């Protein structure tokens, strides 16, 4: 076995929590940049309204659901990080905490996703 393959860190839940936290944080930040630009068109009402009609497109609605997952996961896992930092007892349950926060963010994404995507299927949107 080469030294390189011998030292590969396979990671456990904590590492996956960290990786997902980093990716979702990065993506939410990228969304903020886009969001600042789309809101800045508010002084040209027809442009602003056209952009928000475009956001009603099913692909951009899926993007919206993705944002919901990124946001809820990052927020809930951030709470987990704070709990581990400030309450020594939390580290003993960090694995269960991760499963709980991850499941909760998935659940909220599914519930929110149904609400976000529904207008597309019922045809009550532009």
């Amino acid at each position: 076995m080469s030294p390189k393959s011998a030292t590969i860190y396979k990671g456990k839940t904590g590492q996956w929590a960290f990786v997902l936290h980093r990716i979702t944080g990065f993506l939410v930040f990228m969304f903020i940049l886009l969001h600042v630009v789309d809101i800045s068109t508010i002084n040209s009402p027809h442009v602003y309204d056209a952009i928000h009609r475009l956001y009603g497109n099913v692909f951009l609605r899926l993007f919206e659901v993705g944002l919901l997952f990124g946001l809820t996961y990052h927020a809930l896992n951030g709470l987990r990080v704070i709990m581990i930092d400030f309450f020594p007892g939390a580290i003993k349950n960090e694995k269960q905490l991760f499963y709980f926060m991850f499941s909760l963010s998935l659940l909220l994404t599914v519930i929110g996703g149904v609400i976000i995507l529904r207008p597309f299927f019922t045809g009550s949107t532009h």
Partner: protein
Amino acid sequence: MAIRSLAQKTGDSRTSTRKPRQNFETWSWYFMRISGLVLFFLALFHFFIMHILNDVTATNVTFVATRWKNPIWRLLDWLLLALGLLHGSNGLRFIMDDYIRKPAKRVVVKSVVYGIAIIMFIYGTLTIVTFKG
């Protein structure tokens, strides 16, 4: 933090006698937790109102004009902008420190990222402040 307070409780002399230095990274660490907690409520509340209670196509100019008649909403939206960009660019700082190894490249990328964040902060602030409705 957890290790330090644990050491204080158990009276571990190796760690408890050494006072932690209050350097930039300490403040950055506190800032991420405090801003994170504030953003937890601000961002989720914002998403709930703008994407769940109201459909994205309903949040048009009329919607924003009504909302921004109340200065509290402008203030909350501005707080979300400021804290989101600060929390986000500090997070990006960790990412850049981790993955960009060459000092010269790191300086260039950091300058670009911080520059974009500052421009976006000014641009967003102007949008919130100058909107007449």
